């Protein structure tokens, strides 16, 4: 079996994997990082969004072997070592931007990528930036509010 050499959440990883292994399966089953979710498994819902070399990708539509030499970041790596939540995670909590929470890891990883490319997005830009992520509980208003707040645009 081929060997994958990559970095996951800052740690070097070397692992034998089957070529058919998807990145999301490698993260969940191979690394035990189950924060990344599989929703649709057809690259529509965005629950599986992780960062590969700093950009958001749908990990259900990427082979793990395509991440050779890459730097992968998952939702598990956002909080500080002392458990302090990332500002986007805090904003999601504060604004009730989740209900069942299934879409949340993908929503947050997508929002973090959005804010790193555009630190002060308009509500329309947030909606456009999150169009690859589907939430079936709360609707999107509180998610947009959370991202606005995380970008420092809500005041108070």
């Amino acid at each position, binding site marked *: 079996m*081929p060997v994958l050499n990559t970095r996951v959440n800052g740690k070097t990883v070397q692992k034998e994997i*089957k*070529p*058919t292994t*998807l990145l999301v399966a490698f993260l969940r089953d191979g690394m035990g990082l189950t924060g990344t979710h599989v929703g649709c*498994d*057809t*690259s*529509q819902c*965005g629950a599986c*969004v992780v960062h590969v070399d700093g*950009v*958001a*990708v*749908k990990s259900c*539509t*990427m*082979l793990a*072997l*395509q991440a*050779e030499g890459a730097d992968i970041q998952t939702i598990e790596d956002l909080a500080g070592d002392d458990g302090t939540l990332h500002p986007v995670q805090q904003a999601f909590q504060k604004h009730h931007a989740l209900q069942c929470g299934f879409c949340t890891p993908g929503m947050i990883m*997508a929002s973090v*990528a*959005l804010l790193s490319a555009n630190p002060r997005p308009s509500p329309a830009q947030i909606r456009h*930036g999150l*169009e*690859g*992520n589907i939430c079936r509980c709360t609707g999107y208003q509180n998610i947009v509010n959370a991202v606005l707040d995380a970008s420092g645009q809500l005041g108070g």
Partner: protein
Amino acid sequence: MYPFLYQRPTSLDDALKSFRSADDACYLAGGQTLLPVMKQRLAMPSDVIDLASIGELRGFTVAQDRLSIGAMTSHAVVAQAAEIKSCIPGLSHLAGTIGDPHVRNRGTLGGSIANNDPAADYPAALVALDAVIHTDRREIAAADFFKELFETALEGDELVVRVEFPLPQKSAYIKFPNPASRYAMVGVFAAVVSGAARLAATGARSCVFRLHQMEQALDKNFDAAALAGHSLSAEGLTVDMHASAEYRAHLIGVLARRAVDAANGRGSGS
């Protein structure tokens, strides 16, 4: 997915050699179409040849009268690069309407055109802009490249290396996306290239096509008003669960006028 051998060559030559020595190989660009198709077991290549490590397939260059984009350049790069936005605004806008941000980070120009999905966006731009596809062995004009439903002029092992676009005087793309898939129900790219009006439509037939009658009307006066009274016959247009042929014919007329407006700096689309 059915099992396959994964290969990651670092040169074009090695990619071609790998392809030729395999039973039934497939090139992997961004994988945003190929991987879903393999997951559905609609494709079962013996070998998947990943093009990600071939440096000459990446990046873009702007010369005085041409923009050249490497086949493995992502939609996100085409959408965001300031140089591309300033020299062909319609192309940059088009790339930003493909799929969603995460798909655009992986999907590539070369992968999209080699697949030639009838509802893909890029074919409209390549045909309207009179682009030239450079492969590992020859140059193919866009007009000769897109053949039929999911068929191109590429030979089995042939690789798209880059696409060269002459810089147009005007360009814009307007798309009516299917709200679920974001593929084009209909998309129209309008451009003025070397002084001539060129319009191409995607999503409406089995393959991209030009709107010659509308182009003639626009050659005299590149203004949406020149398209008044021009309608396209519904004959031969795609009928599916999303839209009738008549609806698509109507959309082509509306989107063509909007694309010309946008190319003239009125409304979004460029």
